[in-house]
């Protein structure tokens, strides 16, 4: 290899490393420029995801409601037509029923929370295993702010991490960097709920003497002012007291399937501790 190319490779590697280090340090300092870049990329690419998701739903509706009926004999054409109509009606009815059930549960959640909330749809997820977050179709223009808790009918989903004009990013409770004060419903034992990636959390800092068993519900304690008190984080799926140290190892599984969310509500209060 000639010296010119060796020099070129070193230059590229140094410049790349400098670029990455600067970006990472700017990101850790929450640089507004990076947030703008991130917002711009999301605003440019999320509508595509939004649109494709809509098209996908419509196509699957058409597929389920029509195409699989093709092939019925000619003499049954009238019956087929009716059947098709009823099938489509039933599908629409079933879908409406599901939507109604979901919206009803969100409505009851809204009443239960007794705080100003806004509904939002999940339009995308981070598909990598390095973080767990979702993108909502509600942003700064709809009054969503950083730090606001996000709930679903089953329990707590996460909190708003970034806000863009029309979208917002939620850090799910299973993200490795998510942490919240929680308590076990049955015994009121408190601990810190930390995300463990995938679809799991752990309840940390619970002494071995504390009465905790599989199946116990883990709720938000209300301390810290992020999540509304009494909302469900998940269910204890295992507790191990045979670990070194004074604390037991408790695994919590969220009650909500955080990879298959459709509608959620954003509580429009950033600091619940300051709310009367």
């Amino acid at each position, binding site marked *: *290899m*000639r010296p010119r*190319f060796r020099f070129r490779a070193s230059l*590229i*590697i140094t410049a*790349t490393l400098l670029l*990455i280090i600067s*970006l*990472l340090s*700017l*990101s*850790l300092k929450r640089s507004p420029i*990076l947030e703008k*870049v*991130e917002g711009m*990329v*999301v605003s440019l*690419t999320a509508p*595509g*995801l939004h649109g*494709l*998701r809509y098209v*996908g739903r419509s196509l699957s509706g058409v597929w389920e409601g029509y195409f699989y009926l093709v092939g019925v004999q000619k003499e049954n054409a009238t019956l087929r037509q009716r059947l098709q109509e009823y099938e489509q009606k039933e599908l629409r009815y079933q879908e409406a029923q599901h939507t109604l059930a979901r919206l009803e549960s969100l409505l009851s959640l809204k009443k239960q929370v007794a705080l100003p909330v806004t509904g939002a749809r999940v339009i*995308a*997820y*981070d*598909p*990598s*295993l*390095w*973080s*767990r*977050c979702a*993108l909502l179709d509600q942003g700064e223009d709809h009054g969503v702010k950083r730090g606001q808790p996000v709930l679903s009918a089953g329990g707590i989903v996460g909190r708003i*991490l970034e806000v863009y004009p029309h979208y917002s*990013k939620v*850090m799910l409770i299973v*993200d*490795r*960097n998510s942490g919240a004060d929680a308590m076990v419903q049955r015994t009121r034992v408190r601990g810190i709920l930390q995300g*463990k*990636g*995938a679809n799991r959390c752990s309840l940390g800092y619970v002494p071995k003497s504390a009465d905790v068993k599989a199946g116990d519900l883990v709720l938000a304690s209300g301390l810290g002012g992020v999540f509304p008190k009494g909302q469900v984080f998940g269910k204890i799926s295992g507790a191990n007291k045979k670990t070194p140290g004074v604390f037991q190892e408790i695994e919590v599984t969220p009650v909500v399937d955080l*990879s*298959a969310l459709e509608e959620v509500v954003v509580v429009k209060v950033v600091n619940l501790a300051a709310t009367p």
Partner: protein
Amino acid sequence: MTVPVILFSLVGLGLFYFQNLLLFPQVRLRLVGLFLFYVGLRPSFSLAFSLAVVLGILQDSFATTPFGLHLGAALLLVGMARFCRRRLLLQKIGPLIIASLAALTLQEMGVMLILMLLGLRPLALSDLASLRSLEILATAALAPLMATLVIGLENFLSRHGWHTSRSMPQE
């Protein structure tokens, strides 16, 4: 060079959409990473570098990890592809799959190291090990498909008068 960068970026964006809309959460694959690796194996370095920047920023924007992590991981893959390109004869399917496997594993290690250096909590080696291994293995198994896609894109471009590189690299 602009047209190839745009076309390859659009294909990368398509893979990201495909992963997000159709595969997630049932199937976990690193299609964008594999795509970048194969573009990195092709002659044009500037195309691979530009694509790594575009797709890295795209993935960073949809994640909660510090901005720059996915970008770093993408550039790491391109770097590994260039390394493999200079030292290995990647003509057959077997070596291609093994090279992809090694690159994706090293990328995972690199990301964990960066997260650790930043003081964040990376996934421990044992944590979700089976899921991560499966993800990497399944992705590497798609190597022939991805190689075909990248070569197909290059052929498409050259048929229309655009070349991803003017000459072969000086190695």
